[in-house]
């Protein structure tokens, strides 16, 4: 495959071939499982693969069992779900706005979520209260942008929606800064961690898995239409796609996915923007393959980032959001350089 990537004119991308599709998904699935196992086996209180194997056979240390099942599993499961939701949301928004630079944050969804979460934190809420605040903030921001942009009928290639989202997002940014400024010092640290994307607060990741399953089921019949929409809305319309209806669906699905991810994991950048592009650089251009592959790779990247965030400076931990960009930026730039040569 490396030869194919080096020679952009004559390459026959691996992922473009029928046998390549199954292979790519298989490899991504194996990597995802591997990273998940590593995330369960490693951490601050130690462990390792051997201890995890003993535990699987029902003979482990009960203390270690509690750490794995009650702390590490929900956290790794949360990272997997949030990463998958962010990557899917990014892929959808890029098609919706017909702009390869779009990501879940550009439409103001995360700004609204951050605002909701900070309001909840200022009020002294914790746990479910913060999640709920983020959810409400994300959804109200989404409705606000949607209302201001005037619905998909008036979207001229997404420019109006994009501008509305960017402006609303910067408005939320100012509100968040103001709230942080007013916040008492003892709560400030928690709020800042939330803004950096911290998975240590994940309590119950299973609602997010429910949302992930739901959006996957809803998007599967649409993915052939998405291939056409990526070519262009006018071409798609003349080839039989009900463009207005599909765009509404995309807007709702991508906002819902982003809101769930942000409520679960805080503001985590980069996964939504970079994951679909990494796959496109690998030759994965058909959305019937790109969407499931994005979900797998996005979940894997965030789980890996969170694992590293837990063990790199152990016994201390850092927010995973710091590492997603630290890992993602060089990886992306390296792939882009290779594909240009």
């Amino acid at each position, binding site marked *: 495959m490396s030869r194919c990537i080096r020679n952009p004119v004559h390459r026959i*991308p691996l992922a473009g071939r029928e046998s390549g599709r199954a292979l790519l998904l298989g490899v991504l699935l194996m990597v995802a499982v591997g990273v998940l196992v590593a995330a369960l086996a490693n951490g601050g209180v130690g462990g390792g693969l051997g201890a995890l194997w003993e535990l699987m056979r029902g003979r482990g240390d009960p203390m270690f069992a509690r750490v794995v099942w009650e702390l590490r599993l929900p956290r790794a499961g949360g990272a997997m779900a949030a990463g998958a939701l962010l990557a899917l949301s990014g892929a959808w928004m890029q098609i919706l706005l017909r702009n390869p630079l779009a990501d879940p944050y550009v439409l103001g969804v995360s700004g609204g979520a951050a605002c909701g979460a900070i309001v909840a934190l200022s009020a002294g809420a914790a746990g479910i209260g913060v999640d709920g605040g983020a959810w409400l903030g994300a959804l109200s921001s989404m409705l606000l942008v949607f209302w201001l942009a005037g619905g998909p009928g008036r979207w001229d290639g997404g420019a109006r929606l994009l501008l509305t989202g960017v402006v609303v997002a910067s408005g939320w940014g100012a509100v968040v800064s103001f709230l942080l400024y007013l916040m008492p010092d003892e709560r400030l640290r928690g709020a800042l961690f939330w803004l950096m994307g911290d998975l240590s607060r994940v309590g119950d990741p299973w609602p997010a898995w429910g949302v992930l399953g739901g959006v996957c089921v809803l998007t599967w019949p649409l993915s052939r239409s998405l291939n056409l929409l990526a*070519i*262009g809305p*006018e071409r798609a319309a*003349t080839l*039989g*796609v009900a463009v207005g209806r599909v765009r509404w669906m995309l807007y709702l699905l991508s906002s819902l996915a982003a809101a769930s991810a942000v409520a679960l994991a805080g503001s985590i950048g980069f996964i939504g923007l970079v994951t679909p592009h990494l796959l496109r650089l690998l030759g994965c*251009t058909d959305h019937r393959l790109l969407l499931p592959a994005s979900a797998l790779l996005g979940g894997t990247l965030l789980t890996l980032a969170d694992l590293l965030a837990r063990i790199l400076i152990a016994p201390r931990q850092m927010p995973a959001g710091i590492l997603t960009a630290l890992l993602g930026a060089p990886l992306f730039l390296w792939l882009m350089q290779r594909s240009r040569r």
Partner: protein
Amino acid sequence: MTPLLAVQGLSLTAGTRRLCENLHWSIRPGECWALLGPNGAGKSTLLHALAGLRSVDAGEILLQGQPIPQWSRRALARQVGILFQEHAYPFPATVLEIVLAGRHPHVPFWSQDSAEDLALAHAALRATGLEELAARRVETLSGGERRRMEVATLLLQSPRLILLDEPTNHLDLNHQIGLIALWVEQVKTRAGALIMVVHDVNLAARFCDHFLFLFGTGESRHGPREEMLQGPLLTRLFDHPMLAVESGERTWWVPG
């Protein structure tokens, strides 16, 4: 014979400019039409309105007796297809993927493209001389190859009414003639119809039996070839003297 397409009292405007006013026009099966006019006269806008991409300011467009807005997108895509003038591709895709999009209206919503659809796509690639390029990325194609890829997509869509917006753009001479001849043959065998926007009067005269002129003022005229290709009328249309040169059985139009 009932018309394939009937335009009744159609008016189109762009901003404050009148493109066409109160146009009554009908297209019968088997007819090939050329759309001529100066830049900005509304030729592309009219094509887009016929494809259902644009609302009209007044009047109605009926396809097989039914107004265009009442057609579902899928059903309409099986009847009407358009070759756009220019197109940008913001996302990477392979030539085969783009061409396969032409099968979209024929493949049921809940199923995926079959081996038969793939075979049809390869046949369309062969017809446009692109077989070798099936796996190539669209961003590595030249302008002419990209144009042929779009032609192949429309061949695969195989609509009854074919709308072509400057089909000869970017194409070599052999492909210009060959591809238009292919469309015309399709129209005759399937009792379809073709409407193309062109700038070359002689190319249009070779393939089209009917002409519609848009003057850029809202005024339009249409009719059979012999009636429309007259020196004074062409001179007024292009705002430049047009002379007829007789050569054997054919008449060539040259700018004076």
